[in-house]
């Protein structure tokens, strides 16, 4: 009779996941939020939720953990502003958030353009272009229909084209290509 395989303690299991995916999740959260500090906070919140889930059920989070982390993060990002509004509007009538930490490097314009998109649209772009997810996978992550993702991506591309003013030669679509591919 074989020994049952030892299930790691929740904090040990999470420590391994954190060591491997923590930095990646923070980066993704920052791009999704357009805000370095808020992104880091939200990535932390994902791990807090993961810990709670593992404490309830040690086998809740299985490898690969990245899809769960990413989906939880995306949903937190989409809820973020509403949660802030809902929780604090009763207390703070004139809400003036502190200035964000400056975005590093030469991509501040891209981060800013991305941040101007509605959260769900932004999440579609980031999952599609940064995470290489298919339309179906993006839809699954966001809990919406694939058609919604296609519409959101089309609109996002239109807005980002206008906003980012890509260099000449880049902007023209290839003949016969419409990029609502999945």
């Amino acid at each position, binding site marked *: 009779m074989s020994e049952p395989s030892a299930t790691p303690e929740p904090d040990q299991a*999470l420590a391994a996941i954190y060591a491997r995916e923590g930095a990646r999740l923070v980066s993704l959260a920052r*791009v999704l939020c357009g805000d*370095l500090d808020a992104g880091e906070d939200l990535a932390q919140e994902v791990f807090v939720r993961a810990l709670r889930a593992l404490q309830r059920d040690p086998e809740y989070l299985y490898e690969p953990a990245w899809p769960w982390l990413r989906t939880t993060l995306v949903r937190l990002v989409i809820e973020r502003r509403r949660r802030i509004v809902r929780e604090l509007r009763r207390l703070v*009538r004139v809400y003036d958030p502190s200035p964000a930490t400056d975005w590093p490097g030469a991509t501040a314009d*891209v981060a800013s353009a991305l941040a101007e998109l509605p959260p769900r649209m932004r999440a579609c772009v980031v999952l599609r272009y940064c995470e290489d997810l298919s339309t179906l996978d993006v839809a699954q992550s966001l809990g919406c229909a694939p058609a919604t993702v296609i519409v959101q991506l089309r609109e996002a591309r239109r807005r980002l*084209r206008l906003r980012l003013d890509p260099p000449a030669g880049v902007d023209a679509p290839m003949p016969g290509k419409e990029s609502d591919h999945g």
Partner: protein
Amino acid sequence: MADGMDGFDRWLRQQLSATLDDAAGAPRRRLPLPGAPAARRAHPRRDGFLAGALTTAVVFGVLWAGTSLAGRHGAPSPSGQAATAAGGVLATVPLPDPAFTIAAGEGGVWVPDDRQGTLLRIDPHSARVVAIIPIAARRPVLGAVFDAVATSPGAVWVTSVVDDSLLRIDPASNRVAQRIALGMRPTSLAILGGDVWVTGSQANRVLRVSVQSGALQSRLDVADPGPISAGAGAVWVVSEHEGVLSRVDPATARVTPVFTSAASSDYVVDAVVAGGDGVWVRNLAAQRVERVDTVAGAVAADAAVDGPVASPPEPFTIARTADAVWVTISNALVRVDVRSLQTSRLPLIAPTGIAAGEDGTLWVATAQAELLHVAPGSG
């Protein structure tokens, strides 16, 4: 992923990849792993934010204490404010706490008190608190208990976010007559005919509840439903993230998008009110009040209400009287004449929610824990 991409897609992917690299390279605060001893102090920004909120709450408290220590709970005081073309303040009712959503009707002005978890009934004639109705058995330390309040013939309706419920108050007895579990966190509500319509932004859902029985009649899928209003024969819902106004047909419960705001940022349209001449929305990005032609799906008329707009937006910052639409900005109540689109304003300190009374007067709550009775002007 590479297949099927056009030149712009490839370029955008490169840009986003570089953005991701920059995000990864930015210094981190090195938040510890949750569960580690230091994790409880892992939210300096949030802690700072809450500290700011608490500071603001203390400031409100000081303002409250300093402005009206005497006569709490209900003794009206004459206002020292001069009347303007927009109107004049008839009476000021001190409240125990700032209020943000109010309703007028069924013989009272109904003001939720989030801190005490009660609903105050104010007599519109004497401008005094005449009843305090317990609503919530438990209250959050921070945040709200109530999200919305409205009246229908013979009832007052209030939503509680503590237990995600809709409560019917009997105005004859000033008691909770029914508590209806919604199964979602309520955002806003409106009354049309024999139904209460409740939006749930987190659940992406709109519920229709029978006024008579409290039974759930319909459950509609609507993205990010926030502000809701009833009038012009339909229910009107704003999808906050996308700035979309949708019409809900009360006969078929069919949802039809009728207008999308041209602006691209979130929470562009933050309030809606429907009346005999159409549907008016508040466009935060453009700082305008817009009358929407719901057939053409376009703005038919609009007026600027530029000035400091309170943020975050409040869904109850718009009201309708016979000849005007009213909105609040941080330092005034603004009247928009529905025919001439001329605006006039009554300076006020931190007005929040507005409700139009049955007699054509207005009630305005403020963040200074006051309820103002306003006689509207004519222009």
